[in-house]
């Protein structure tokens, strides 16, 4: 029976018998069935199969189903909501519990996030306070004293190492400011050369009012000078005092200074010094006189083009700002136009301030030459034996042992504090899937046993 030879397909006939055809289609198949013997045989077969299948009846459902389902029905919140206000409350409370589970999970995530942020990201408030403190230190009235004062000695068990960081812009002295006279006891220099050079520099410093005025003359090449010196001195303490005196005498400042007084090692001083360009040569000569020069390097970068360029850009920006302000004062227009002009003024002002900062930094590089100084003591073999006694060593070992135990305990505690929120979170997230999987596993094993 094919579609070509037969107008009704067999599956169509079956659908007709099952009542699955639309009315018009069913009428067409019914009409065909009246005439077609082949379709009548198929109809009989299909009806026979259905009739035989219906002979398989199952036993009545056990009463236990009724009991358990109806018991669950009595306990179901849905049917209780319509009865009593108390039940309604219980129903809502149970819903709340579901919401609370999610809320609890979200809270755990939040707490974990806060702990992680607290542990790994430094507090912005602390950072702000630290910056404020540093700012106060840098702005102390006796700024030069901060540089020249004796450095603090750190922990007794470690090499004495110090580092003084000084912000150049804050510690930059006025060129005309007279230097305070050095204490007489510090004048015990290796030779009188430094004192002589200092006097020469003082005299020269009176010749100009400002280093800027000399160095930034038009058409003069503008050089940012740098130099580095490596000096070994026999008497380190006097050489170090000499460095302080040179800084004061030549109106310079120390951007950074590190002194190493470790026991058993030659003392050394590393510093980055800045001197007015006009006094750079004199200062270099004075520094060389502190000891034997092992290495010297000098360099200069011409920054004339950069200075001219930034001056021109700054001038143009200022003119633009003036013109825009004139427009704002004299012209009238729409509010949007006024706002646009104001925006442009703000942008121009921002550019001007940025360029002024660059200009100032450039001028500082020109007016102040940078000298990197590496001063160290000549090596002297010492017969002193500083090895600690056996008792001291045992005591140190005990103290170190207790300290390391305490540090290990703290590290363990910190690790636990870090890990516990994550573990809690993982427990909250994985508890329900694990419980579901466990129950399913149990049910599977029970089912297999029952089927087997």
């Amino acid at each position: 029976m094919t579609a070509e030879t037969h107008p009704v397909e067999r599956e169509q006939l079956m659908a007709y018998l099952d009542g699955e055809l639309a009315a018009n289609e069913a009428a067409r198949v019914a009409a065909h069935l009246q005439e077609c013997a082949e379709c009548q045989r198929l109809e009989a077969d299909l009806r026979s199969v259905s009739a035989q299948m219906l002979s398989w009846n199952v036993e009545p459902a056990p009463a236990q189903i009724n009991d358990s389902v109806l018991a669950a029905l009595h306990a179901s919140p849905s049917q209780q909501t319509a009865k009593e206000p108390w039940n309604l409350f219980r129903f809502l409370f149970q819903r709340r519990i579901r919401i609370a589970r999610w809320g609890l999970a979200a809270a755990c995530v939040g707490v974990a996030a806060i702990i992680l942020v607290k542990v790994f990201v430094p507090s912005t408030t602390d950072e702000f306070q630290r910056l404020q403190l540093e700012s106060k230190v840098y702005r102390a009235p006796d700024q030069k004293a901060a540089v020249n004062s004796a450095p603090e000695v750190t922990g007794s068990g470690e090499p004495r190492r110090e580092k003084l960081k000084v912000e150049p812009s804050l510690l930059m002295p006025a060129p005309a400011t007279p230097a305070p006279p050095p204490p007489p006891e510090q004048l015990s220099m290796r030779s009188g050369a430094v004192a002589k050079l200092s006097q020469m520099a003082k005299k020269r410093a009176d010749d100009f009012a400002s280093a800027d005025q000399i160095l930034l003359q038009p058409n003069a090449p503008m050089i940012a000078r740098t130099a580095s010196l490596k000096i070994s001195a026999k008497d380190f303490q006097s050489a170090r005092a000499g460095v302080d005196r040179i800084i004061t005498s030549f109106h310079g400042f120390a951007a950074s200074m590190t002194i190493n007084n470790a026991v058993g090692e030659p003392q050394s001083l590393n510093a980055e010094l800045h001197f007015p360009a006009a006094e750079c040569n004199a200062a270099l000569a004075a520094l060389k006189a502190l000891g034997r020069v092992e290495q010297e390097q000098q360099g200069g970068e011409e920054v004339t083009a950069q200075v001219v360029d930034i001056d021109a850009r700054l001038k143009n920006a200022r003119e633009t700002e003036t013109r825009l302000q004139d427009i704002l004062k004299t012209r009238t227009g729409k509010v949007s136009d006024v706002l646009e002009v104001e925006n442009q003024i703000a942008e121009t002002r921002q550019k001007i301030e940025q360029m002024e900062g660059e200009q100032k930094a450039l001028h500082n590089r020109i007016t102040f030459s940078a000298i990197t100084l590496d001063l160290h003591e000549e090596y002297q073999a010492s017969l002193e034996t500083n090895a600690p006694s056996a008792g001291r060593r045992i005591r140190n070992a005990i103290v170190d042992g207790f300290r390391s135990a305490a540090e290990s305990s703290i590290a363990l505690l910190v690790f636990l504090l870090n890990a516990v929120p994550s573990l809690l979170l993982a427990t909250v997230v994985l508890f329900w899937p694990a419980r579901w999987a466990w129950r399913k596993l149990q049910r599977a094993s029970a089912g297999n046993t029952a089927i087997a």
Partner: protein
Amino acid sequence: MTSDEQLILDFQRGSQAAFAELFDRYRQPVFGFFRRRLRDAARAEELAQETFLVVLRGIERYEPRATFRTYLYSIAFKQASGEYRRAKHDPVPISTEPVAAAQQDSCDALWVRRALEKLDEQHREVLLLREYEQLSYDEIAELLKIPVNTVRSRLFRARMELKSLLIPEVSEIKKVSL
């Protein structure tokens, strides 16, 4: 007579009697659904019970997108599929109790059961849903997530196959009885 859909909506609004009515209507069909698919009568009972409990527990989430009958049998079908997976080492999930235990069945019923066991699993499922659960083609398609045309073709093949399996058996039985 109130429709199934109306009853389930009434139950959502808190009517205990509505669910009792639905339970009364479908208790035996759902038990029969599992009983015809599983060997173990106790397990069939448990799964029928679990099906109604799932309806009870999920009543808040019920949405009248399909007929209640489809919804109920889809739950039952999922339960049965889970049971098949758990018992996948058993190649014949259809109830095949020993003849002694099924002596209460008529000879025809016994041969029907044995013939059904021999059918392809997909064909058998469509046939069972149509003949015993009385689902329409659309409902079967929705439940099994297959096109309606596929339901029709599978059903036809299943019936033809079952006919060829049953006719010799029945004739043989008749010969024996004669």
